[in-house]
């Protein structure tokens, strides 16, 4: 769990800096980190607010980026079945990329689901608390870090750490490469609609490659 918190520190700082750059007050920045509680969505929202995109575009782009939570939710649901509904509702709120990675490893190792649930609750809450602190520190202190340190580069690095382990089969590589090409090719679209368009292109490409490969091997 500690490595996950350490990994979040620069990411949280940069999200706080982003909120400040988008013109939010400290309460707005805290609202983003406490309620949205997703680095990717906070970065998207801050960037799109800064370029003056309409609310509908911001919400839609964040929603597509948040679709990965559907997948996490489906993967973790069977392990949470034995827990009471209140615990399930609380754990769902704490479901993030990092908490999911930590919890699913623990659940897959087997053992008592209640102990696994408690582990998830502890890990998720520690990450949430760590996230609020780093976001607020970033909001106030972000501009004290010299620009020459390029701390903003920590954000793509955090995302790279999340996705690189997935690059192990043709559909995932295809999804990543096509999304990357599409986001550059569609850069001319207004209001950064290239983000959402490239995400959809990548998702369709991965699915199509997987289905095509299956048909091929069945022959």
């Amino acid at each position, binding site marked *: 769990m500690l*490595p*996950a918190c*350490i990994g979040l520190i*620069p990411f949280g700082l940069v999200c706080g800096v982003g909120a400040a750059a988008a013109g939010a007050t400290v309460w*707005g920045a805290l*609202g983003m980190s406490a*309620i*949205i*509680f997703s680095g*990717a969505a906070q970065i998207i*929202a801050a960037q799109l607010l800064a370029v003056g995109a309409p*609310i509908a575009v*911001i*919400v839609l782009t*964040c*929603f597509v980026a*948040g*679709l*990965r*939570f*559907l997948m*996490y*939710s489906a993967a973790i*649901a069977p392990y949470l079945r034995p827990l009471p509904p209140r615990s*399930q*509702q609380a*754990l*769902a709120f704490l*479901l993030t990329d990092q908490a999911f990675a930590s919890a699913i490893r623990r659940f897959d190792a087997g053992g008592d689901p209640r102990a696994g649930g408690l582990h998830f609750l502890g890990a998720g809450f520690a990450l949430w608390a760590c996230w609020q602190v780093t976001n607020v520190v970033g909001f106030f202190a972000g501009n004290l870090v010299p620009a020459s340190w*390029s701390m*903003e*580069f*920590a954000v*793509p*690095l*955090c995302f*790279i*750490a*999340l*996705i*690189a382990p997935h*690059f192990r089969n043709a559909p*995932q590589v295809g*999804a*990543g490469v*096509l*999304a*990357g090409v599409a*986001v*550059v090719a569609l*850069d001319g679209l207004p209001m950064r609609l290239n*983000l959402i368009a490239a*995400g959809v292109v*990548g*998702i*369709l*490409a*991965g*699915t199509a490659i997987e*289905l095509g490969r299956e048909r091929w091997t069945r022959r």
Partner: protein
Amino acid sequence: MDAALKLWIVIVVVGALNYASRLSFIALFAQRAVPPLVARALRYVPVAMLTALIVPMVLPGTPLAVPLPPTPKMVAALVAGVVAWLTHSTPKTLVAGMAALWLLEALAARIG
């Protein structure tokens, strides 16, 4: 529209949609299986969406460009990708990526 009001609308709506996504199969459709085609497509959401976010943060310029020789950020991102692929570790990826960036920028400054 008032900027603060717009921000809070975004916070509440995105927060609610995020929570609905997180709660979806845990509680909202706990009794239902994920449709197989949806399950397949969802597997590609993290890689597709996060790559779409990463690329504009690594490439220079508006509009985005892919220059040759590559910039220090492009090479550092590649180094970080290899480290992440091998180690599955966020701290190691961060250290490798930032160290590569600083080193390459220092080198580029000396040469340039």
